[in-house]
């Protein structure tokens, strides 16, 4: 044990003396987060802004009720709703005024709602092809309204058949805007970028630990470590510990900087710490595999850079990813996805335990990668 501490302390002294830890581990992600926040800042301050227009081609009593219901959403959750003339051309106004989507109430809408039987009433939706995410929000609104109307219609008919007199359900009841931002709505762009860069760069930071096993080989000092009266496992354990400590140090500095400079509100710090610790563990395990395979520390650095950036893209460090489809599956195999999702959940949560699932997922990745990593690193212990 004391050998682990001795080697760890020596390595930390070497690394912290070297500027590259601060440059790569802290300064670069910080600058990148700021720049990306500036570039992508128009995605909104904390919430997606969605600009919707409504065209009521029907003009019946029923349709005007619906129109009023949709218009009533104006100002809620970043929505802006404009009511257009009955004869407005949706495509033309999207081109001209840049709406994200136009909801069209067709001219037979009222008749269909009040008709006995027949097919369900439908609403038209014209989406702005340049704004798919925002158009998606409009779509969820339309689906919400039509479901409600259909439910009301069925209820009314049933009541009618039973001879009951039921007041019609107002169309706007219970509409929820559930699709705002794939990956959650909790963090604002700056905070998200900060977290994304932090988890991406921790993959670079941990190199300063495990990869130094190759440097020890190059400087010949590995021979001395192997000749010393210490267990061989303490050498690899110390390298892992150095990676872990540097990773946690750099990431926590970035998270704190996020709150101080970008006003990020991560939620309970205990949860943040749990996420950071598990993300760093996965990074150490994954990068240790590379260090265990690579021939030289230069080769390891190159491979690690590719892996760090690749995983970050898959996992949503650069731009948000949804958890669906093949890409979603790949995303879920990265610690980045779980780290960011954990933070999204945590920011709105009252208790830190909401990070349980992401922490568990990252623990699984860490173990799955950690076992081969330990075996491979051990094989490096040759004079």
């Amino acid at each position, binding site marked *: 044990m004391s*050998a682990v501490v001795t080697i760890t302390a020596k390595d930390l002294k070497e690394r912290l003396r070297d500027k590259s830890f601060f440059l790569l581990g802290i300064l670069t992600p910080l600058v990148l987060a700021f720049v990306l926040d500036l570039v992508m800042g128009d995605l909104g301050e904390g919430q997606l802004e969605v600009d919707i227009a409504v065209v009521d081609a029907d003009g019946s009593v029923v349709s005007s009720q619906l129109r009023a219901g949709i218009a009533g959403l104006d100002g809620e959750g970043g929505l802006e709703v404009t009511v257009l003339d009955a004869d407005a051309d949706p495509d033309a106004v999207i081109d001209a005024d840049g709406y994200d989507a136009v909801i069209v109430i067709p001219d037979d809408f009222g008749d269909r709602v009040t008709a006995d039987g027949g097919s369900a009433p439908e609403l038209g939706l014209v989406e702005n092809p340049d704004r798919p995410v925002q158009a998606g929000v409009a779509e969820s609104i339309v689906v919400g309204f039509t479901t409600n109307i259909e439910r009301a219609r069925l209820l009314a008919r049933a009541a009618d058949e039973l001879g009951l007199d039921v007041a019609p359900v107002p169309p706007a009841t219970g509409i929820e805007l559930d699709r705002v931002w794939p990956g959650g709505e909790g963090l604002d762009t700056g905070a998200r970028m900060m977290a994304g860069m932090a988890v991406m760069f921790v993959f670079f930071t941990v190199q300063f630990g495990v990869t130094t096993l190759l440097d020890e080989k190059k*400087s010949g000092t590995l*021979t001395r470590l192997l000749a010393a009266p210490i267990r061989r496992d303490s050498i690899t354990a110390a390298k892992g510990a150095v990676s872990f400590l540097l990773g946690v140090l750099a990431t926590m500095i970035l998270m704190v900087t996020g709150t101080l400079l970008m006003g990020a509100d991560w939620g309970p710090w205990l949860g943040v710490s749990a996420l950071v610790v598990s993300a760093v563990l996965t990074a150490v395990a994954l990068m240790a595999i590379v260090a265990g395979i690579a021939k030289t520390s230069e080769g390891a650095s190159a491979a690690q850079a590719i892996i760090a950036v690749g995983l970050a893209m898959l996992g949503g460090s650069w731009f948000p990813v949804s958890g669906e489809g093949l890409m979603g599956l790949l995303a879920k195999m990265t610690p980045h996805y779980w780290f960011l999702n954990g933070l999204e959940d945590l920011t709105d949560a009252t208790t830190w335990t909401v990070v349980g699932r992401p922490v568990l997922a990252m623990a699984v990745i860490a173990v799955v990668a950690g076992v081969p990593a330990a075996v491979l690193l051990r094989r490096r212990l040759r004079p």
Partner: protein
Amino acid sequence: MTVIPGTRLAEASGLHKTFGDIHAVNDVSLHIDAGETYGLLGPNGAGKTTTISILAGLLEADEGTVMVAGERIRPRSTRGRAAIGLVPQDLAIYPDLTAEENLKFFAALYGMSRRDSAPRIAEVLDVIGLTDRRKDRTSKYSGGMKRRLNIGIGLLHSPRLLILDEPTVGVDPQSRNAILESVETLSGEGMAVLYTTHYMEEAERLCDRIGIIDSGRVIAEGTRAELTASIGEQERIRIEVTGQVADAASRLRGLDGVTDVAAEDDAVVVLADDGSARLSAIIERLAGAGAQIGSIDLARPDLEAVFLHLTGKALRE
């Protein structure tokens, strides 16, 4: 450290090690007593470093055992390690740490307390002449200074067996002399020393006993006197030659009184009975082969002659 001179400190028996097709160490046995300096003399690739790596517990032998200070030495065990001090052939120091930090780190690794290590580090810095530069990073040191620190780390924990693997390679003559002197001092204090080299002069000066190693085998062992006696009263003649060295050497084979001939890069080495009397015949032959002759060196039997006699090769080819 209490040392009873003459007690068996290290013993290797029947060591074998192969790397693929290369039989790097082939049935090597040797022993070193306290206070004794044992030299392992052999050319490049003879198996010196591999033998040492097994002795220091870095490498697992395919066969054979190593005992140091009464403990079996194996890579998987830490037993007996503290009794050994290793000075690797290649530099093994941390470039981003100072000499003092390097020494402090290895002192801690060998389990020395801070209280014990501080005076010992000062002592070692003095021995290796780096007291003034102890607070400089070693990346700023000259080659000789790095070598001296490399040796200092091996001495630090006052090992009972000090293993030095070609410690003077790439060192200027002055530093080299300082290194040899400190080895002599340590040996005088009772430390057992295992010293590998391919410099005959170093082995002759330092070592009480010498093992001559070639192609993984110890082909002869004994004191300098014993080894040179084994080749009788022959003399070694070294003649600098330019031109077809190998061709010139081959012409000397079979010449009356000449027992061994070997070619170096720019010289021919000949072992001959009553060498001085044969010299004119040898030179005549060489001139006849069209070789340009430079300086001629005639020596009493020495280790190089022994090596040539045993292997038919020059020590440095």
